[in-house]
């Protein structure tokens, strides 16, 4: 059993504060992903949990022990590093068994556990090779094997896939997910890749400038981003964020895009938003489509825009359109006809999937919806 709790954890380097009052409770066997741009403090937080960095304030608890002052070797954790950190002078077998050997476990136990881990990871044929004779993906597997063999309370992954090429990264991502199904353990996984975060996580922690922006399931952070930053970070292609202004209209308040359409606001969701307020309008590329190929929408709203560029991707296409002064991306699945740049095309967007953020603070303005809890 290993829950991990962080209470008011702070990291300072001299005068620079890298992590601010980090609070998080991670459940037993939960897969939590820290995601954010480089320099957001996600790796630092992970390294503090591992004990590779001292904490400047707060408290870290693993299981029922406060581990603030314990060295890494007493925390019963495993870590997979970005560049694998395999011992180059040892074989795959020795690399995996290193931790158990250091703990002075009997030979046959080490043998058994290494064999089991190697079986799980498909490493049986490489056991007597050195890391130098392995490919990047194989090395990453050995690093994971080394982590599994020790039966740790918590697995820590520090950007484990960023040294691999795109295809291999996809494969390994799937393998990590399968592995977590087989070896149920608490996992904390750091990445800057939002796709990894979305596909792997039970819960995502989006970080920025040493602070947590949002904690939630992949569904929550995608459908109800807590801030403009999260909205722009999660999702690919990213959400369209359009500078706009609220205006008074016949039936309440509407959002006016400069030089473009004015979208009515659903008063049940935005009853606290008054007129004449600068806001950021957020529309997912998936919720915009040309009228003639739009799917079913809850609250369709039609407007006209110029298609300036088309990027066909086979099963889908990205359209770049001019919505007033803003350039907006639309993502169309299985376009039924060939799309080309043209003027004044009728478009539909779903007002039920509209996001609104405060222009200054970036805070989400939508009232609580079904996606939020």
């Amino acid at each position, binding site marked *: 059993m290993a829950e991990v709790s962080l209470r008011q954890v702070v990291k300072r380097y001299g005068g620079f504060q890298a992590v601010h009052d980090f609070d998080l409770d991670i459940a037993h066997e939960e897969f939590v992903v820290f995601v954010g741009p480089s320099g957001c403090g996600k790796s630092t937080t992970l390294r503090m949990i*591992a*004990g*590779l960095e001292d904490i400047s304030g707060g408290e870290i608890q693993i299981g029922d022990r406060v581990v603030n002052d314990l*060295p*890494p*070797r007493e925390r019963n*954790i*495993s*870590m997979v*590093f970005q*560049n694998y*950190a*395999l*011992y180059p*002078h040892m074989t795959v077998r020795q690399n995996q068994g*290193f*931790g158990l050997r*250091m*703990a002075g476990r009997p030979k046959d136990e080490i043998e058994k556990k290494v064999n089991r881990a190697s079986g799980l990871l498909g490493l049986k044929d490489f056991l007597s090779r050195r890391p130098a004779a392995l490919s990047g993906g194989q090395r990453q597997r050995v690093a994971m094997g*080394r982590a599994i063999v*020790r039966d740790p309370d918590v697995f820590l992954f520090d950007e484990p896939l960023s040294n691999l090429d795109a295809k291999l990264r996809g494969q390994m991502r799937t393998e990590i997910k399968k592995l977590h199904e087989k070896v149920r353990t608490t996992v904390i996984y750091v990445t800057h890749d939002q796709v990894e975060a979305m596909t792997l996580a039970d819960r995502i922690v989006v970080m920025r400038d040493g602070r947590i922006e949002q904690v939630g399931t992949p569904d929550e952070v995608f459908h109800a981003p807590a801030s403009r930053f999260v909205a722009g970070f999660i999702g690919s292609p990213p959400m369209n964020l359009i500078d706009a202004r609220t205006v008074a209209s016949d039936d309440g308040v509407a959002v006016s895009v400069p030089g473009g359409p004015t979208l009515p606001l659903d008063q049940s969701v935005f009853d606290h938003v008054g007129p004449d307020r600068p806001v950021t309008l957020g529309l997912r590329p998936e919720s915009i489509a040309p009228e003639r190929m739009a799917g079913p929408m809850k609250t369709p709203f039609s407007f006209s825009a110029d298609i300036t560029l088309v990027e066909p991707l086979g099963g889908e296409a990205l359209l770049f359109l001019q919505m007033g002064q803003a350039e907006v991306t639309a993502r169309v699945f299985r376009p039924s006809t060939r799309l080309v740049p043209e003027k004044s095309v009728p478009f539909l967007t779903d007002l039920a999937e509209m996001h609104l953020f405060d222009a200054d603070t970036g805070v989400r303005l939508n009232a609580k919806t079904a996606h939020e809890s």
Partner: protein
Amino acid sequence: MSVAADTPAATGRSPSRTRRRFAAAEAYAYLAPGIAIVALVMLVPLAVGISFSFQNYVIFRPMSRGWNGVENYLELWTDRTFWLALANTARWTFWSVAFQLGLGLGLALILNRPFPGRAVFQSLVFLPWAVPTFLSGLNWQWLFNPIVSPLPGWLTAVGVLEEPRNILSDPDLALYGPITAMIWWGIPFFAITLLAALRSIPQDLYEAASIDGASPWQSFRHITVPFLMPMITITILLRTVWVANSPDLIFVMTEGGPANSSQTLPNYVFTSAYKSMDFGYASALATVLMAMLVIYSILLLFVRGRLGQ
């Protein structure tokens, strides 16, 4: 496939063979100047030196010069000073290199950790290496002199000596004077090379090891030492040959005395050649020393090869 079979080699024509031969010759032509220089400055003097060892060649007696077969080597076999010098060379080299390695490694490990003033300390540590051996020999000679230096008094105070006296004039201890000077002078060389090797060890291996549950000692034993081993063997090899061949500190501090008690082979070679003026005998001594160092080097390189597997 018929196109592939129609190559010159398959049809038995010869131009490719001559061209190959020419290409090989061309490589040797490029190498020739280098080989010529090496031969001129190394191989020829070496051959001349070895040929001296089979001659009766004493500068005072030019008339009696001539080949005398292995006579010099037979003389050497019965020469008590030779055996003493050989034993002293082994002692001198072993203790010097062992302490240089131990202390140099310790120093490198200390300098590898950050601490305030490390840059200054580091340059100070490497200072002895910059001092000419001749000067450091003189300095250490004074340091062992009880009249001008407190060192013999301190050695007495900690119980190493029973009274403050000059160990350089004690036949049983004289060699340890130059050994001390050699250790002091040679530590920086080990420290520099081992520090460079330490810095090349990726830091995340230590992090991985600490997470794997390794204690600091286990990290040192299973990561630092294996990484340093190739550098350690090559440095020991270099330093052994270097120390074994170097007469200067002993010459400055004791001149091999008192009564040959601190005589090593290089010193004995020097004394035979330039004091007794017996070039033949000196060459025989030098040849024996060289042969032993060559065998030692081969053994060490063999061990290193085994370690690398």
